[in-house]
């Protein structure tokens, strides 16, 4: 634990700098540069809103915001995890030449994706003003919910990154699992309303025991429906996130010096 904190402190500047340079490099050669970070999720939102409100006739209050929150949070989780599978291989020149605590790479990646998520939340706020969404003090629940999202994501990233080094086809497995998870997370529908109608127990299970489903629906609740999240599950998922992170960091500390031999 002590080592973890001092490693973070030692590498914090590098972490920020490398996240910044990755963002910069991403847009360096494109015409619209950073506008893509806004444009892309906005377009996805329009597509989904059209598909589900017109084609599938779905009805939710503030449907565009509803979908946008789902996409934003899902993207953060999805991109972070799928990118950590090959993290070590992609950073081979670094890994084989200098010692860096390997979770520094994951945290740097989280900052990159976190920055994009922050932009999207800016858009969400703007949309809330345009749609005149009523807000309440429950808005503050956003903070613990986001912290939980980060902790869970970090834990999963560390673990996935470790196994990604040794298991060549993990990325194929992850792609399939995440496709499934995507549809079960309710990015473009309300689990409790849609599934709950005919299978209330199943909906409860899916909504609360899938961290992403729980987090997405809770953020929607407190952000646009003035509700409050189920605190019991918030505490549970936060604890699970911490446990995952501890396991992940422990694994990395134990095996990280072997990575250079494999890649």
């Amino acid at each position, binding site marked *: 634990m002590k080592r973890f904190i001092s490693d973070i402190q030692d590498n914090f*500047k590098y972490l920020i700098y490398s996240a910044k*340079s990755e963002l910069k490099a991403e847009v*360096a050669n494109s015409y619209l540069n950073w506008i893509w970070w806004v444009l892309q999720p906005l377009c996805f939102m329009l597509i989904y809103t059209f598909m589900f409100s017109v084609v599938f006739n779905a009805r939710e209050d503030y449907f565009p915001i509803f979908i946008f929150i789902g996409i934003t949070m899902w993207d953060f989780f999805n991109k972070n995890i799928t990118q950590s599978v090959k993290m070590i291989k992609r950073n081979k*020149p670094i890994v084989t030449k*200098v*010692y860096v605590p390997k979770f520094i790479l994951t945290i740097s990646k989280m900052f990159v994706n976190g920055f994009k998520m922050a932009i999207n939340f800016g858009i969400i706020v703007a949309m809330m003003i345009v749609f005149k969404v009523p807000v309440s003090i429950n808005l503050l629940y956003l903070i613990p919910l986001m912290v939980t999202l980060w902790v869970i994501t970090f834990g999963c990233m560390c673990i996935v990154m470790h196994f990604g080094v040794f*298991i*060549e*086809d993990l990325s194929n497995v992850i792609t399939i699992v995440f496709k499934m998870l995507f549809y079960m997370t309710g990015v473009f529908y309300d689990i409790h309303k849609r599934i709950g109608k005919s299978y209330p127990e199943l909906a409860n299970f899916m909504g609360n025991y899938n961290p992403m489903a729980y987090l997405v629906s809770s953020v929607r609740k407190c952000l646009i429906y003035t509700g409050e999240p189920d605190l019991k599950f918030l505490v549970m998922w936060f604890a699970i996130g911490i446990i995952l992170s501890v396991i992940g960091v422990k694994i990395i500390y134990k095996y990280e010096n072997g990575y*250079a031999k494999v890649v």
Partner: protein
Amino acid sequence: MNMEENENQEIAITVKDLKIVYRSLKTYSLKKSLLRLKKVEKQTFEAVKGVSFEVPKGQILGITGKNGSGKSTMLRALAGVFAPDAGYIDLHGNSVSLLAIGVGFNKALTGRENIMLSGMLLGFTEEFVRSKIDEIIEFSGVGKFIDMPVSTYSSGMFSKLAFSITAILETDIMLIDEVLSVGDVKFKKKSYQKMKSLISNKDRTVVIVSHSLSTLSELCDTILWMHEGEIKEIGEPKVVLEHYKEFMK
């Protein structure tokens, strides 16, 4: 070995019974491991087999040996990239860097940004790299290209910049894998001079891995000859290199 004579001298690197093993050199795929659940075959390869030596502070140690004798593996272990499987390495609190070209470069960024990135990755503080940045740019001689993306560089410019970073940002112990020959004749001369002045600094301990016998005999105080993961001979450059030449015939 003249360990007794050097007893009052400070030791910079201690390596004791160092062993490094590569376990199954290939990563495995899920299918393979599912089909062969019963018996996971373990192919191991011992790259370094119980090596011990010490390097006094300020000395220059040259390591030579034929390909695949474990030289580079050991160098990386010294740099802290590999963990030893047995034995230990003690650097007595000295900072160490593997003179590696272009660590952490991002080709879409400018040379200036890459200097910062690479320097910070090597463990230097942002302020320190910033204070050295002009010296690095000056030494590299890439001139106005420094503010252009590295992807537009010629390969010579790229290696010149990369070499300059590691040459200017100094550490107590420097590990050099193959004496670097980059750039044109002029830069080669310049970098060789720089290397010489770097490693002749009294406080700096240097480990060089090389096949070039002339470089080794010119620069090193001690030569370590490795053969198939073991020390074949260690001692005076003249003596060891002579034996090595004989052996390789």
